[in-house]
C-alpha cells in the first residue's frame, strides 16, 4: 500500500489497531473525538471491544481491568480528561499493567481552550498520580511518526508492563498528512503474560492477583526498588532523540512535537542569515534524552534555546541536562497560540534577552 491522506486522530486510532489494540475505553473530549469515533466503528467491526465510558475515570479503570485480564488496551483523551485519568495511571504503574494512552493536548489550566498546546508536558512526564512511578512518554512531530510510535507502543508497554503515553497536541490531532501505514517497526521479544487474571482454569494451581497494595513498608520499598530497576532499563533502552544540523552550531534549539516543525522552518531562515542553528528534538519525553547534552560537540555554541508551546516546562529538563555548561534561553507561546517561525528567528537573534540561566 502506498501513501494515503489521513487525519491525525484517525491515524492514532488506525495505528493502535495495527499495533494490536483489543479493547478501547474512552470518553468524549475535544480535540481527540475522532479517535473514539473511528474505533467505535472499526474496532467493533473486527469483533473487538469498544466502550464509551461514563467518565475518564471509569475509562482508565476499564483499561486497568482489560490489562489485568491480559489484553492490549488503550484510552485516549485530552488535557482535563488526562487529569482525571491520573488515578488509574498510578494504579496501572503500581500493579505493573501495560496500556497505551494517547493524549491530544489543548490549552489550560482548567477548562482552558480547545486550541493546540504543549502545556501538559509536566502532566505527562511528571504525572499527577500518587507515588514513585513513571509513564514512558513519546512526543512525535508528524502524523507518520505518531503512527510508527503507536504501532510499537503496545510492545513497549508489554515489555515493561507499564503504561506508554503518546503525547501530541490538537494541531497534530486535527491536521491531515499523507502517511504510510505499512512502515515496519522494531520487533522485540515479549514474554507470555503469565500474570493475567483470566481464571485459574488457564493456570491451574496458581492464583493470579493484580494488586498495588503493600501494607508492610519493607515490602513496598522492595516493590518500589523493583519498579526503579525497570525505569532505569527503560531509560537506557527507550530514550529517543533526533539531532538536526548539529555540525558546529552557533545556537541549539530544543523543541518537540509541533514546535519542532515550526523550529525547522526557523532554522532554514536563520541559515539564510548565516547563523548556524542545530536542533535537539526529544522524541521520548520520559525518559528525557539528557545524555546528548553531555556529548554535544559544539565549540562555538553561544546558547541553547528551549522553545515550547507553554511558558517553560521542558525547560526544567533542559536546564538539568545542560547542567550549567551553556547559556540556556527560553521562548514560548501559551494559551493555544502556535508561534510563527519568524518569532523563533527573532528569539535567536535576540538570544540575550531570552536567557534564563
Amino acid at each position, binding site marked *: 500500500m502506498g501513501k494515503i491522506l489521513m487525519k491525525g486522530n484517525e491515524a492514532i486510532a488506525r495505528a493502535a489497531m495495527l499495533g494490536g489494540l*483489543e*479493547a478501547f*475505553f474512552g470518553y468524549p473530549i475535544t480535540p481527540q473525538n475522532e479517535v473514539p469515533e473511528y474505533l467505535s466503528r472499526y474496532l467493533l467491526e473486527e469483533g473487538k*471491544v469498544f*466502550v464509551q*465510558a*461514563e*467518565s475518564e*475515570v*471509569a*475509562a482508565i*479503570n*476499564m*483499561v*486497568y*481491568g*482489560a*490489562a*489485568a*485480564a491480559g*489484553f492490549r*488496551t488503550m484510552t485516549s483523551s485530552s488535557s482535563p480528561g488526562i487529569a482525571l485519568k491520573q*488515578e*488509574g495511571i498510578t*494504579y496501572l504503574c503500581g*500493579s505493573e499493567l501495560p496500556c497505551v494512552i494517547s493524549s491530544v493536548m489543548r490549552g489550560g489550566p482548567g477548562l482552558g481552550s480547545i486550541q493546540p498546546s504543549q502545556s501538559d508536558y509536566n502532566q505527562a512526564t511528571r504525572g499527577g498520580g500518587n507515588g514513585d512511578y513513571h509513564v514512558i512518554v513519546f512526543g512525535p512531530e508528524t502524523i507518520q511518526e505518531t503512527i510508527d510510535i503507536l504501532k510499537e507502543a503496545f510492545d513497549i508497554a508489554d515489555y515493561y508492563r507499564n503504561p506508554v503515553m503518546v503525547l501530541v497536541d490538537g494541531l497534530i490531532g486535527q491536521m491531515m498528512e499523507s502517511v504510510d501505514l505499512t512502515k515496519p517497526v522494531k520487533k522485540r521479544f515479549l514474554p507470555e503474560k503469565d500474570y493475567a*487474571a*483470566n*481464571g*485459574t*482454569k488457564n493456570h*491451574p494451581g496458581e*492464583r*493470579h*492477583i*493484580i*494488586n*498495588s*497494595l503493600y501494607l508492610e513498608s519493607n515490602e513496598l520499598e522492595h516493590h518500589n526498588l523493583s519498579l526503579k530497576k525497570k525505569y532505569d532499563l527503560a531509560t537506557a533502552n527507550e530514550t529517543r532523540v533526533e539531532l538536526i544540523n548539529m555540525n558546529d552550531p552557533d545556537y541549539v534549539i530544543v523543541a518537540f512535537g509541533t514546535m519542532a516543525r515550526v523550529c525547522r522552518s526557523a532554522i532554514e531562515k536563520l541559515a539564510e542569515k548565516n547563523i548556524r542553528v542545530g536542533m535537539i528534538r526529544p522524541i521520548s519525553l520520559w525518559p528525557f534524552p539528557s545524555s546528548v547534552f553531555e556529548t554535544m560537540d559544539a565549540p562555538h555554541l553561544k546558547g541553547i534555546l528551549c522553545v515550547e508551546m507553554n511558558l517553560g516546562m521542558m525547560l526544567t529538563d533542559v536546564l538539568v541536562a545542560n547542567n550549567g555548561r551553556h547559556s540556556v534561553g527560553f521562548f514560548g507561546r501559551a494559551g493555544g497560540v502556535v508561534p510563527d517561525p519568524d518569532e523563533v528567528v527573532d528569539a535567536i537573534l535576540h538570544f540575550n534577552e531570552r536567557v534564563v540561566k
Partner: protein
Amino acid sequence: MEVKYKKTKGLTDSPLSYCPGCTHGIIHKLVAEVLEELGVLGESIVIASVGCSVFSYRFFNCDAVQSAHGRACAVATGIKRNLPDHVVFTYQGDGDLASIGIAETIHAANRGENITVIFVNNAIYGMTGGQMAPTSLIGQKTTTSPMGRMAEVHGSPLHISEIFSQIDRVAYLERVSVFNPRQVRNAKNAIRKAFTYQVEKRGFTMVEVLSSCPVNWGMTPVDSLKWIEEKMVPVFPLKVFKDKGVENNV
C-alpha cells in the same frame, strides 16, 4: 468417618482480616460456597474494592484484581467485555459503591454488564474507623457525625437497591441480610441466583447484604445483629426488587 461439614474450596486458607463479630466472614463464605457449587471457581475473577474488604483478593480462591476506590464496576467491565464467558464479580462496601463509586456502579448496571455485584451495606466506613456513610441511618452517631446523622445537614440514607430497581438492564436485584440463620439461607439463595443469572448471561445482577460493624457501631456482636433487624431493616426493607427470570417466565 463421614465428613458432614467442611470449609468450602471457594475460600483460601488465608486468615480473614475482619473484626470479631463482623458478618463479612459469613458473606464471604456464602459467595465462595456458591462459586464452588456452580463449579465456576476456575473461571471466576473477583474485583476487590477499597474498604474493609480490600483484602478479599486474598480470601476468594480464584483470580483477583484489586481496584481503586469506587472503580470496581469499571474494572469489572474491562475484564468481562474481554472475557465474556468468565464469571466476574465485585465485592464492595457502602462507601465504595454508594459514595465514591456510584457513577461506575450505576452505569455498569445501565449498560447491563453481565457481572455480579455483592454490595455489603453496614451503614458506616469501617476500614477508616467509623465515619458516616451515605447509608448511615438518621440519628446514627459516627466519627464524622458525632451528634448523629441529621437529614437537613447530611442528607438521608441512600437507598441503592431502590434506585437500581429503576434501571432497565438490571436482571436481578435483591436486598438480604445475615442477622439470623434463616436470613443467611435467604442470602445464599439470592447470591446463588445472581451468579446463576450471570452464567446464563442475563445481565447485571446485584445482591445488597445488610451487614454488621460491631467495632465501629460500638456494640457487641449480638446487639449488632439485633440493630440490623430492628433499625436497619425498617429503613432498608429486605425484598426482591427485580427478577428478570421470573418476569420472563410470566
